[in-house]
């Protein structure tokens, strides 16, 4: 199958004006600063409006705050943010009937990173910084949690503060993790890997980033209101009973959900429609497959979360009773809606990680990727199955008890396609010639960590065993092994591997090795004891625990602090390699065959001078004289026939 090489190029991919002078956006054009100002104005307006409309009722118990004012404040704040950054210029102009020739200014220079850019490469780098900020704030909160758990009886935080910290930590991390790979690496690399000059919907792509940052601030806006006490799962009716910060959680999920849907939709359409001529499904790189499966999950699962959040907001500001049993609603409704999204989300966090390591292994093994088709099929299989397992999170809830064998079966079935990634990995290592560069080390660590995460998942899905471990530290450890041990290690692998392409600068290997070993060792030392802590009966989200568990908890806490340091080392590495001692990256530092390495560095605005014609898959390592991956002099952009 081939795709026409002709595509519209009206929006992006207009080369910067050749007249010499680079266009710079003026101080008064739209950027981060104007967005912040507009957001604050919007917030104040919404708050006033909410109080005006509903000043006499819907106050949150004991808070003196009106939920509607709170909600409108955030709503108009987000609208202001989007207006201020310029996200709405184009649609508004269209609605006003002005011609659709408006172009986003192609601002050059550093300041483009603070603007509404429709270049997927700029958006990718914006996301790198965005998710890292997200990750670091979430990480700081984790340090606070582990500090409190140093002692079973002496408390550093008040119980209300502690629960606020735990809830913010979980929510921020889970939301960040949905975008941590798709955002930075997906946006940046997908067009390069499929030989496209652009994303399908560049404006939607830019929108997904800026709404993502808005969601980040919305979730944080709970802090001045005393946070929310529900954890990241937000169970009702605690949700209905909670203070005003709850609105930030519900609305924050909705806002980030919009970003997830936008990103997923754009990426799925791009992968399906914008592949270069000759890029058949059999030749699509495995990373692209993983992102395609993820994008499908993002678009299909997130709407459920979005609506669930809006129901929650209605319950609070409008006295509907979706989740309140005593008024005819049901506390099970939220649990089901939440996990119907929540379990696919779990794979939104796992699949990209699989994609990254499968992409990286062959490069450092100098061997073809083993069983690529099985791997891709596994990813699609996981994506499909993940919609049919959600009740394994509520096995003990009393709803549908006779369905438990079914959900036990589907959950355990999903470990078959999940296991394919091990087949792919182990098969690729066989008789390889392994180079231990940083991306490879992080990828190998994923296999170590994820194996523990996956196997404990099978324990959890066994209903009798679930009785003893559900709701405790065992679960906590399980999902940290999959998300942190899997996704985060893969993310690091991806950054060390692709940042040289994205920035043109190598990351320092020595500092990177320090980071890797500290992170790998102390990740395991932090989380492995938690399995035992859980088995010994410590529930999640508590500030007191049995005295005899202090030793293990302290061990875990101290390891966690060192784990935290490993992230500081990463930040230091970025600072060092970008600003202090920049070292120019060679064109193809890892001798990869991937298409993304065949363009110039830095990548030209429109990616490829000519649309490449793809001849084969990118994994022909160890095959001297194999067909070249692509004909880069291929078809020209606007004329020429697909091969």
């Amino acid at each position, binding site marked *: 199958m081939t795709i026409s090489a002709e595509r519209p190029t009206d929006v992006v991919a207009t080369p910067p004006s050749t007249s010499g002078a680079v266009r710079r956006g003026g101080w008064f054009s739209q950027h981060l600063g104007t967005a912040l100002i507009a957001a604050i104005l919007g917030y104040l307006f919404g708050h006033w409006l909410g109080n005006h409309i509903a000043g006499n009722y819907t106050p949150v118990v004991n808070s003196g705050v009106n939920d509607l004012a709170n909600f409108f404040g955030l709503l108009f704040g987000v609208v202001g943010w989007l207006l201020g950054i310029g996200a709405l210029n184009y649609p508004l102009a269209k609605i006003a009937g002005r011609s659709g020739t408006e172009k986003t200014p192609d601002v050059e220079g550093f300041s483009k990173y603070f603007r509404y850019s429709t270049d997927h490469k700029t958006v990718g780098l914006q996301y790198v910084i965005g998710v890292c900020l997200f990750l670091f704030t979430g990480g700081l909160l984790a340090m606070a949690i582990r500090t409190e758990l140093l002692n079973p009886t002496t408390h550093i935080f008040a119980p209300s503060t502690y629960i606020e910290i735990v809830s913010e930590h979980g929510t921020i991390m889970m939301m960040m993790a949905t975008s941590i790979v798709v955002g930075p690496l997906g946006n940046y690399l997908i067009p390069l890997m499929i030989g496209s000059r652009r994303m399908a919907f560049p404006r939607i792509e830019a929108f997904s980033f800026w709404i993502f940052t808005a969601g980040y601030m919305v979730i944080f806006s709970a802090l001045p209101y005393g946070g929310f006490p529900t954890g990241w799962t937000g169970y009702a009716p605690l949700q209905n009973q909670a203070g005003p910060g709850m609105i930030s959680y519900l609305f924050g999920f909705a806002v980030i959900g919009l970003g997830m849907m936008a990103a997923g939709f754009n990426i799925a359409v791009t992968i399906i429609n914008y592949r270069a001529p000759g890029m058949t499904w059999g030749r699509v790189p495995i990373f692209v497959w993983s992102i395609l499966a993820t994008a499908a999950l993002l678009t299909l699962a997130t709407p459920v979360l979005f609506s669930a959040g809006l129901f929650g907001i209605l319950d609070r500001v409008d006295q509907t009773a979706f989740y309140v049993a005593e008024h005819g609603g049901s506390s099970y409704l939220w649990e089901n809606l939440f996990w119907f999204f929540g379990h696919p989300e779990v794979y939104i966090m796992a699949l990209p990680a699989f994609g990254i390591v499968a992409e990286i292994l062959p490069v450092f093994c100098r061997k073809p990727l*083993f069983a690529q088709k099985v791997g891709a099929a596994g990813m699609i299989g996981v994506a499909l199955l993940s919609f049919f397992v959600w009740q394994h999170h509520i096995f003990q809830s*009393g709803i549908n008890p006779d369905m438990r064998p079914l959900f036990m*079966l589907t959950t*355990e079935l999903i470990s078959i396609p999940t296991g394919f990634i091990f087949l792919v990995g182990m098969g690729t290592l066989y008789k390889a*010639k392994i180079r231990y560069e940083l991306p490879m080390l992080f990828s190998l660590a994923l296999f170590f960590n994820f194996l523990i995460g996956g196997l404990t998942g099978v324990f959890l899905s066994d209903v009798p065993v679930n009785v003893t471990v559900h709701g405790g530290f065992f679960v906590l450890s399980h999902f940290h092994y999959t998300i942190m041990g899997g996704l985060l290690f893969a993310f690091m692998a991806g950054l060390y591997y692709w940042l040289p392409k994205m920035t043109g600068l190598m990351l320092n290997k020595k500092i990177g090795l320090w980071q890797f070993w500290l992170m790998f060792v102390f990740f395991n030392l932090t989380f492995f004891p938690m399995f035992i802590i859980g088995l010994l009966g410590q529930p999640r989200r508590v500030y007191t625990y049995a005295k005899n568990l202090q030793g293990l908890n302290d061990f875990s806490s101290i390891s966690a602090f060192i784990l935290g340091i490993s992230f500081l080392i990463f930040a230091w590495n970025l600072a060092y390699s970008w600003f202090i001692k920049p070292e120019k990256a060679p064109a193809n530092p890892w001798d990869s065959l991937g298409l993304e390495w065949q363009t110039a560095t830095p990548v030209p605005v429109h990616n490829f001078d000519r649309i490449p014609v793809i001849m084969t898959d990118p994994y022909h390592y160890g095959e001297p004289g*194999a067909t070249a991956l692509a004909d880069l002099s291929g078809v020209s952009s606007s004329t020429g026939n697909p091969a």
Partner: protein
Amino acid sequence: MKNGEVNHLRRMGSAWAVIAVVADLVYWFAVGPHVPPGRLTEAAKNNQMDFNILMLVALPVLLGVWVYLAYSLRVWSAKRGGPEPVGGPAAASNRRTQVLWISITSVAVLAAAAFGTVALIVDHGSGGGEGPNPVWMPTGAAKAETAALAGKATWAPGTNAVLPVQVIAQQWKFTYRYPTFGGFESPDLILPANTSVAFNVTSLDVIHSFWAYQLSIKADANQGVNNVAFTETKGPGQFVVRCSELCGIWHGSMYNYGKVVSQGAFMQWAQQTEMANAANTKLLPPFAYTYAPDANGAAGGLYPDGTVTPYNSSLTYGAKQPAS
């Protein structure tokens, strides 16, 4: 395999076989018997057994991948300067390996699901919450539960009758009602040894989860829902009850301790408490499987289902309504 070439898979395989067998044996005999939640009840004993059996399978899998990783990372390291890897279709896929892998994992997974299902059914829900209409009940449970609601349940030492106990969760404590003893409500959970117990778990406010750790009971408490979990107690012992579903600020403090005592001692305690509490019990709403708070507030009157003070949704919480 050409002559003289090392058979890597055989080497890994034999190393793995030895390590896996040793690990399984050590686990089964040295670790398994101490695995929580112990053996205070039938559910605890069975769930421990399930955990251990899963472990017997999981350990070899874990070790298999580890052995493979350790071997290949050493032997096929570029530093050793071995031969260049051979690419081509043979290296990119291998039908036999793929089919073998998929078959083995599928069989293992299906076996695990079948095993879990059987264990769940045979052990009457394995101590987990089975909802208001449990499907896998111990004999006599249905009878005892119906009798409890009608106020006619009885229990005496040596009768082998199922003992219904109600667990009422609220922010932030558990209390227990004993329908077989006039429906008194107590902050202490005392159970007779060698007895089938039916826990009827409900909540007065948000979702809690009743986790009687050593009993291996876990059932969510939802307002307006009766979530039943069964087990059979063994010899006397102590246990901890913790709330295992986040229920607000003092979730971390929502725990208490319970005891399994001899049947005679239990009878004595129950009868004494029934008498001592008689005056209070009269003020309680009659025993029911769920309670809805009336408009006078959660801490005020609790009314059994059916005779709830009619709730007027246009009135705000705390508005005065006539007590029924």
